[in-house]
């Protein structure tokens, strides 16, 4: 029995480490390739010399057909940060009014939240595009942002969390004369750090990586987010420049990886809450 356990643990670590290597390998290859000269991308794993040429190519251009990639990073930030803040703000006040203030018909609204999460997005793609067009939102940042300002999933997980906060705490604050809005900002917000971290991470991640929606509602190269511009160029002008492609892919991956590493602890803690995010 003892002998069995002795050789079991190293074996577990070995399998996990091989698995981890396979999981991280594409990232590793992507980052290494982005610093390689074009001749070495397919032939060598470790580069013999490092170059920043690929990044210079994508960010500065100089080919005569360059597009504004630096600007596209700014566009991506705009269409990711604004919805993230908005989703947190409206998620919180809506969940608070439904679950803690129990406004008339709160059960109906809570069911509505769940229904909105369950209905597949494909049903809304075409009509939402038509609505954006009717509202003059095509080729605008606002057109890419509007439909993501409120996320029923965020309302749902705030409701789940607000259920666990004792009513006595809120009563005490009300007796001290705190307004409902103050209760949200001074009590609910500090208490729901984990939930807010998860909402931030998932929302930012989804908006930063978003591809189909900005592809549809925006045809203006100067307003494209990085994901769309990069995709169009990979299928077009950059097809034969694997190094440049990987530099772009690295730029696209970096912000969400950093954000993930910052919020990592909350991610694992809150996995039971996020049960409904596909």
């Amino acid at each position, binding site marked *: 029995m003892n002998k069995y356990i002795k050789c079991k643990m190293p074996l577990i670590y070995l399998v996990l480490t091989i698995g981890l290597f396979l*999981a991280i390998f594409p990232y590793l290859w992507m980052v290494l390739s982005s610093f390689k000269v074009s001749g070495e991308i397919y032939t060598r794993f470790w580069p013999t010399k490092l170059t920043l040429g690929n990044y210079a190519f994508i960010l500065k251009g100089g080919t005569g057909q360059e597009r504004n990639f630096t600007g596209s990073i700014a566009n991506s930030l705009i269409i990711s940060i604004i919805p993230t803040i908005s989703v947190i703000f409206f998620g919180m006040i809506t969940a608070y009014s439904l679950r803690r*203030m129990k*406004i008339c018909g709160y059960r109906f609204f809570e069911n509505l939240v769940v229904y909105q999460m369950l209905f597949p997005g494909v*049903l809304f793609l075409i009509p939402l595009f038509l609505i954006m067009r009717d509202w003059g939102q095509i080729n605008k940042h606002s057109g890419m942002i509007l439909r993501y300002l409120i996320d029923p999933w965020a*309302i749902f997980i705030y409701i789940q969390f607000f259920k666990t906060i004792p009513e006595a705490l809120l009563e005490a604050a009300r007796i001290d004369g705190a307004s409902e809005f103050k209760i949200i900002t001074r009590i609910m917000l500090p208490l729901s750090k984990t939930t807010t971290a998860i909402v931030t991470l998932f929302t930012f991640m989804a908006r930063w990586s978003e*591809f189909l929606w900005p592809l549809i509602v925006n045809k203006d190269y100067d307003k494209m987010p990085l994901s769309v511009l990069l995709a169009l160029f990979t299928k077009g002008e950059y097809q034969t420049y694997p190094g440049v492609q990987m530099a772009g*892919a690295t730029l696209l991956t970096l912000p969400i*990886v950093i954000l993930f590493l910052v919020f990592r602890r909350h991610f*694992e803690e809150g996995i039971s809450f996020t049960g409904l995010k596909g």
Partner: protein
Amino acid sequence: MRKNLVSRNNLISYKNFGRKNLIGYIFSSPFIIFTLAMWLYPFLWGIVISFKKWNLISPKQSWVGLENYLGVIKDPMLWVMVRNSIYFMVVFITITTITSLGLALLIKQIPKKYAGLYIAGFLLSYVSSGVAYSMVFNLLFAGDGLVNNLLRIFGIKVGWFTNPKIAMASIAMIVCWKFTGYYGLFFLAGLNNINPTLYEAAVIDGANSWQRFIKITVPLLNATFIMIIVFATIISFNLFTEPYMITGGGPMNATRTMMLEIYHRVFGLLQAGYGSTLAIVSAVITFIFVWAFRKLIERDDIYE
């Protein structure tokens, strides 16, 4: 006097009730407006368009009744796409269940401080952006890419994305790569919820580790299995970025999905009505599969 007090109390609480509702409705009014404008309205409009013929541009929209629905159902492409999605689903669910459950079972056995590091490493693939990892895998699995260069040692060359028989399976493998760590975390949460005394009792009864796995672990992870299979089903029918970036629906329509076809029909061929119909049919098919899977697998009477 007493009566007076009661009524005054009632008055105050009634006033408070009204005020509370007023503030509450102010708080939730953005959500209500959003629901009407961005959910109910487009939902109804989507259904209306599916009964129309319209090229998105001209003011002329004509009612065509069920013509779009008949067109979708009679189009052989629909069955090609459903078959592709089922192929994807089978490969994806099988492999991802094995890898993520395996991952969770292994992680469970190592000390917590190392477990956190491994989980973080495996989750890195989950946070990757669809466009970025599609580009990376497209190069890694290209005809003369790294993977084929390695396989050349054994004298094998695989057309990962060019052989119509395996292109969809290759895409399924990529999506497995993305979700293994994430689903592993769900399985880990499920495993941690299993009462350890059950295993102790089974050991006393002489059950070996395989029997314990089949009789205790698998049935008690039922809820996790359901959740992952439902997610996987929805992913299968909503696949867009990966085939768009890597194969464009080819070779020979082997990776054409509903989403690609909707995009192509509406924004390429300007067939708004047909595209809307396809979206509705796709949603209905997804619902049928989710319902069937739940019917088949879901158990709520496990060892209670």
